[in-house]
């Protein structure tokens, strides 16, 4: 943990092991339940559906049976942005409803401040922000399951993943009561990381050597947090948004899909109907 002007600076981040991820959707549901995300009878219009954690299904686009697929969960990337804090969404919000907390590396969103201009959604290249197109309505009785730590959003505002910020607050309180200087890794975990049946999601402080994430990612902060681990990558690194969200995959084709390339390599000629796909990393 790096110390600056006496204050301890953390940078919370996440690394998702795509080799382990099975696309089961536990992260999505855990998030919905933890963060009081509203639901409607028809949620099949994904362009208007709110799901802070969204699982993409990537395909290598090759003909059967060389076809391969990979699930890629996507919460908010909590970009640090060009010069610490100049995240794509934050700089554009006219009402200061979203902010990058330098001491935690978390991008916040104030729902009662947001007035729904959706400029931030246009600015975000990851489409990690969601707009409340409808009034949130819970079926009779179901409002009983709402989590008091997270306020439900009203119609007409933008919401997004907060890295379960409320959990950080309660972890801080606990640490304070126990007189601990810093929060133990396990006492602050996001709902998705906690639920993941495959244990594919690792969450923690990228700047804290004791946290498993820093050893998995080995971020190089002189390179804008780029990972020193060849298997680990971030999405759209060329845009210099400096996301705090890392992915790890042993499949080359998946890593290739992480960013836009100038010269698109042509798909290899496929072997004649040989009914097997060997994984060559």
């Amino acid at each position, binding site marked *: 943990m790096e110390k600056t002007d006496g204050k301890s600076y953390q940078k919370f981040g996440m690394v998702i092991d795509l080799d382990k991820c099975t696309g089961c959707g536990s992260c999505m549901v855990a998030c919905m339940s933890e963060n009081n995300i509203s639901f409607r009878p028809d949620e099949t219009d994904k362009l208007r559906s709110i799901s802070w954690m969204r699982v993409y299904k990537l395909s290598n686009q090759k003909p059967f049976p060389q076809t391969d697929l990979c699930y890629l969960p996507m919460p908010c990337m909590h970009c640090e942005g060009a010069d610490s804090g100049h995240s794509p969404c934050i700089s554009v919000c006219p*009402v200061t409803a979203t902010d990058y907390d330098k001491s935690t590396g978390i991008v916040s969103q104030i729902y009662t401040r947001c*007035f729904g201009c959706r400029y931030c959604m*246009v600015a975000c290249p990851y489409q990690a922000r969601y*707009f409340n197109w409808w009034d949130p309505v819970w079926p009779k009785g179901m409002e009983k399951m709402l989590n008091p730590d997270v306020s439900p959003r009203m119609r007409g505002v933008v919401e997004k993943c907060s890295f379960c910020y409320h959990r950080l607050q309660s972890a801080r309180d606990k640490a304070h009561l126990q007189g601990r200087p810093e929060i133990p890794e396990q006492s602050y975990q996001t709902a998705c990381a906690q639920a993941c049946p495959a244990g594919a999601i690792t969450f923690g402080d990228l700047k804290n050597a004791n946290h498993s994430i820093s050893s998995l990612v080995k971020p190089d902060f002189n390179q804008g947090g780029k990972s020193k681990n060849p298997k680990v990558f971030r999405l759209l690194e060329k845009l210099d948004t400096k996301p705090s969200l890392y992915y790890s995959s042993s499949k080359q084709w998946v890593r290739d899909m992480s960013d836009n390339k100038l010269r698109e390599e042509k798909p290899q000629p496929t072997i004649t109907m040989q009914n097997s796909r060997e994984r060559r990393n």
Partner: protein
Amino acid sequence: MKAVIPSGEIPRCSSRHFYLRLLPVLILLAWGIYAMLLVWIKGLNQTNMNNTYGFALWIWADLAIIALGGGAFFTGLLTYFFGKTELRSIINFAVLVGVICYSSALLILALDVGQPLRFWFIYWHANVHSMLTEVAFCLTVYFVILNIEYLPALMEHPKLQQIPFFKNLGRNTHAVMGLFAGIGVFLSFFHQGSLGGMTGVLYGRPFAYREGLLIWPWTFFLFTWSAAAAGPCFTLLLARLTEMVSGKKLVPGVVKDLLAKISGWMIITYIVAKTADTIFWATNTAPKAGFVWTRFYTESPLYHGYWILVAEILICGFIPGLILISKRGRHHKRLCWIAVLLVICGVCLNRWSLIMQTVAMPVLPFEKWVFYLPSWQEIATTLIPVSLGIIIIALSYRHLKLFPQEKELN
């Protein structure tokens, strides 16, 4: 009611005839207002926008309308600071067009936000780094100024002229108009630019992102420039339409010619700059983000194809520009008006592609292009400016001395 004729002598048609002709427009307005109420009461689910299309028809309308309203500040600039006094014969009208455009823009903005009642947060909790904040601040102030600028014309109304206070108010305002016009021009430069900046600063959106000067991306300057070019053309067009409807000559040819010539030069210079910007973007900015510039135009050729580029830069840029700067072009009536129209289309098309193509284009390699058709509520509300504009112009023309030279020209 009895039509009050400005300074007596100029005849106006009967009220009955007047309102009968206005009826369809009133119906259009009513439709728009109905849709507006729907949106405010039921929320933005009434539109066809979605999480990808966060900006859509409305924002485009805003950008376009404000660009076209640019005639007010630019004509003002020419009249009060470059001593083009002959333009006084059209300045009132230009200002009126400005008032209409800006009021509609503000209205649409009020529709477009999810929580209209929180509109004032934008001042209260202003984030000065956001282009939208700059836009909001300048827009509101400039709107006040436009109204002040319009005051004298209003005070010309015979009924008001009878009241000494208003007579003097009109005269005095007119006396210090230079000051107001000055502020207006200053603000316009900024908010026109900021509107351009809005897309230019999106470094997460390779299609829109531009490098620039200090905090201002190139689009900042291009927008101001194009507004200055297209604004006067729009004023001219509306003046022409008013002439056609009223069947009277309202603006002396020399004035039109002057204005056309000036905007001709503006558009030519603008489009050269725009071309330079596009080339720099295609060869430097986009590749840095990992995009071959052709990708932006080939992946959904029908909706976002090369045609946009050709139409915007060549057909609606160089061609009308050349027509308007050449004496022969300007004097060839039909050709001149076509050019004026093209300029207007050009600037609208520019705003369109910068908004729509920016959001439709996927940045993640595994995302798809998204298509969008506005809902009828969006269309109806977007037509409010049109109906409102027609009504206001009609009324002003009927009751005010909108065109000082109307009398001697007829």
